[in-house]
């Protein structure tokens, strides 16, 4: 594992170049360019807000619904965009994989980092919302960084699985884009977690994204610090998940060029 990270460090310039390619190519031929990074989530927020603000008026934290929504939705969009793009990344870079030798996971990491840059830009929306509604985050706000780290590790793990499997079976990308729609509704993003009856709460316990998004909300809205036990077990789970995924990815890597 440490050796793997050292290898990635050796290839950091390639990683930066791929991130740059990823970001710049997307907006090269569009007039609004980088504005799309912000326009896209804003539009989704507006739609969801218009639809759901009438249905879910209540939430556990005493904050206006748009604020409640934006804290859940932005990290979720980052998660969706990283994983769906990663599922495809080995296939779209087939020419690189069959021609040059480099650690293939760099392609996955570059995708996630590029989406993370988008995500940071989209946080401007959240800031605007917080200013408009005059909400001040609670003092243990810094916990969001911990949960963000967990989200990154979990996203990287899942992305490695998807990228690898999709190289052998293209069905995976279609299957995943179906599943992630369902996943969205099974994660407390547009509604608060306790809207579900006790007997269904186990769905959220099995869903790392539910715990992560709940973690963001508690860190920002609640005066109590997040449950340390939940935090450590989440961290442990995502670290193990990532390690297993990377192990699998590296084991299959030598066959990529033959199958892609």
């Amino acid at each position, binding site marked *: 594992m440490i050796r793997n990270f050292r290898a990635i460090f050796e290839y950091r310039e390639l990683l930066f170049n791929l991130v740059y390619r990823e970001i710049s190519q997307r907006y*090269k*031929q569009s007039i609004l360019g980088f504005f799309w990074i912000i326009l896209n989530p804003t539009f989704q927020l507006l739609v969801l807000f218009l639809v759901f603000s009438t249905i879910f008026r209540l939430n556990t934290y005493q904050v206006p619904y748009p604020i409640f929504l934006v804290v859940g939705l932005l990290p979720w969009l980052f998660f969706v965009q990283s994983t769906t793009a990663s599922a495809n990344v080995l296939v779209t870079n087939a020419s*690189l994989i069959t021609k040059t030798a*480099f650690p293939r996971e760099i392609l996955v990491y570059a995708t996630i980092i590029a989406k993370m840059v988008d995500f940071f830009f989209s946080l401007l929306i959240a800031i605007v919302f917080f200013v408009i509604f005059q909400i001040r985050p609670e003092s243990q706000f810094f916990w969001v960084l911990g949960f963000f780290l967990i989200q990154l590790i979990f996203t990287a793990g899942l992305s490695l699985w998807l990228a690898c499997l999709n190289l052998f079976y293209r069905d995976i990308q279609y299957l995943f884009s179906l599943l992630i729609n369902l996943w969205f509704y099974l994660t407390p993003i547009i509604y608060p977690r306790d809207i579900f009856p006790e007997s269904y709460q186990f769905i959220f316990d099995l869903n790392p994204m539910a715990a992560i998004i709940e973690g963001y909300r508690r860190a920002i809205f609640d005066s109590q610090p997040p449950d340390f036990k939940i935090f450590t077990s989440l961290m442990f789970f995502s670290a193990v998940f990532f390690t297993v995924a990377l192990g699998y990815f590296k084991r299959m890597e030598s*066959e990529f*060029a033959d199958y892609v």
Partner: protein
Amino acid sequence: MASHSIILKAENLTKKYRLAKQKTFKEFLPAFIFRKKTSDELIALDNLNFELTKGESLGILGRNGSGKSTLLKIIASVSQPSAGKLHIQGKIAPLIELGAGFHPELTGRENIYLNGALLGYKKKDLNRLLPDIVSFAELNHFIDQPVKHYSSGMYLRLAFSIATAKRPDILLVDEILAVGDLQFQRKCLERIRKFQQQKTNLILVTHDLNLAKSFCQKVLVLDQGKQIFFGEAVRGVKKYLDITQ
């Protein structure tokens, strides 16, 4: 003796491909459950044995589908052998397919940095090498244009120019030179010749027998994955002519 050190050595090098009988999950799942055979085997390279000492160049000859490209992929360590071993010493510049790392929307200059990073150049080196790369590729006016507007000749010139910006220990060349015009071809060959004088090992896949004879000391002849001949170039070319007739 350092000058006779072995740079590249293949021992019983074999590559098998499993060809999936069922291409999709939909076809695969029933076959997997009912324990039907899920793949066929294809032997792309069968027990190859050859070696090159420092400065020696190898021409790989063979008809289409004889395994030449598979062998290049293994030498470029993009693909792994199924059995046997390949020892390589030194830095390889893969030219397997020029412009593989190019992105059409990026400019020539941006692509130099991307492609250079793929080849393992550092940014510092690339900054220094940039003027040379651009002038060798004869792209002075077009270097800030997106590569998608390039002609295939310009594409080739840029790719060759990046890949050979620094002298590699082993240079892999696959047919590709056929695309450029005569004048540029000559320029490329001159550069290759210069590298050879500085002890670069050239590995050349070609159908041009004269090129193989004039640039390579050794020739490897492949036919349907089998090694027909390995040895001195002139005899190798004759052998190749025998099997193609």
